[in-house]
């Protein structure tokens, strides 16, 4: 059966993509941010996962308000970068793991989660940036396949944090019941604190961000019990997307070891954090 070898969490801010595209990686402003990912990149190179399940949200680039699935699972063979207004980024298309995607969809439905089944879709910075941060951008082909899980965290009602945590538990069941010797990582993306709209725009909460990076490892049940309002109050309106990390955490055992953790603020207008978790 397939193996889950670790969980990763990271911000997916578009300015990170812009910084990479403009060659700003080693500027004084960005270097401390990017250097924070070096240990995780080393871990990836050493463990060579075959499949990355990426939990993220489309930021109204591939999806519009006409149809808003609360959860969607991509089961395509390929996911191309979407045009977010500046033309599609020069990132190689992501290879899908369609067979596992269908197995995941089966497992989810059997466990009372009913996702939209998505066979054709492009992906935005929400998936691109985490992949580039952990794997580096390849010349031609990604050394890993992806399974995108789309979550609506923008149009209300968004799902409850506890629901996402439970989704993670079913995701684990799907991985463990998948007849394959492939090695999986699960990546929760988004956050940390930021608010882009309204008179509270520019809201940052580095203390809460640092606390979250501790609690996601040690007290996930507590974080899963928070209300959506508490997330928005604590992390800002767009920072509320941090609930997507709970899918990653729910997929892992209760006991985990933090292999690496990094925090940097602000990346553009966002508290940027990452974590690498292994099971004990």
């Amino acid at each position, binding site marked *: 059966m397939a193996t889950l070898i670790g969980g990763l969490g990271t911000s997916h801010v578009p300015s990170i993509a812009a910084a990479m595209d403009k060659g700003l990686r080693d500027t004084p402003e960005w270097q401390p941010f990017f250097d924070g990912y070096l240990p995780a990149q080393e871990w990836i190179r050493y463990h060579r996962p075959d499949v990355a399940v990426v939990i993220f949200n489309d930021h109204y680039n591939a999806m519009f*308000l006409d149809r808003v699935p609360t959860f969607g699972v991509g089961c395509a063979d390929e996911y191309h970068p979407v045009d977010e207004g500046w033309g599609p980024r020069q990132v190689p298309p992501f290879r899908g793991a369609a067979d596992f995607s269908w197995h995941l969809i089966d497992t989810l439905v059997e466990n009372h989660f009913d996702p939209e089944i998505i066979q054709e879709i492009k992906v935005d910075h929400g998936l691109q940036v985490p992949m580039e941060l952990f794997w580096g951008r390849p010349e031609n082909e990604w050394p890993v396949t992806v399974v995108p899980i789309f979550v609506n965290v923008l149009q209300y009602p968004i799902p409850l944090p506890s629901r996402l945590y439970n989704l993670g538990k079913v995701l684990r069941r799907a991985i463990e019941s998948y007849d394959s010797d492939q090695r999986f990582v699960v990546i929760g993306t988004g956050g940390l604190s930021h608010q*882009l709209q309204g008179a509270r725009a520019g809201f940052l909460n580095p203390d809460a961000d640092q606390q979250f990076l501790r609690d996601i490892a040690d007290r996930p049940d507590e974080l899963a019990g928070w209300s959506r309002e508490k997330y928005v109050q604590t992390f800002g309106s767009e920072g509320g997307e941090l609930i997507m990390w709970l899918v990653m955490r729910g997929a892992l055992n209760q006991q985990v070891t933090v292999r690496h953790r990094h925090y940097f603020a602000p990346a553009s207008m966002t508290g940027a954090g990452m974590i690498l978790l292994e099971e004990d």
Partner: protein
Amino acid sequence: MTQTREPAGSGHEPARDDDTIPDTPLLDRKRQLRGYRINKMAMGLGDPANREAFKADEAAYLDRFGLNAEEKDAVMRRDWREMIRLGGNLFFILKISAVDPIRITEIGAHQVGMDHETFLRERLGKKV
């Protein structure tokens, strides 16, 4: 007989100032109905042909999506605060900045009512 309703707001809904969390406009039912046209117009800018149309004749492009006078005015004046108040969501209207460049921190500062440097310093803790 069942009454049918357009998915987009009729344009008569009042703009919102009654956020549950102060100064934090969430895309809830009322707001997304109110902002449907603005958001659809901005979503269109993900297509290069529409970006060219927007650049060539902005008013005509906005008319194509049925924006009312208040909405058109907010877009054409690049009044970000007003676009949000009218139900625009940042992830849509940000695409306007791909056609007419402005930094996201400037959009933030405008909504807060601060000049850019003050916003960077006071909200984001930057040393400027």
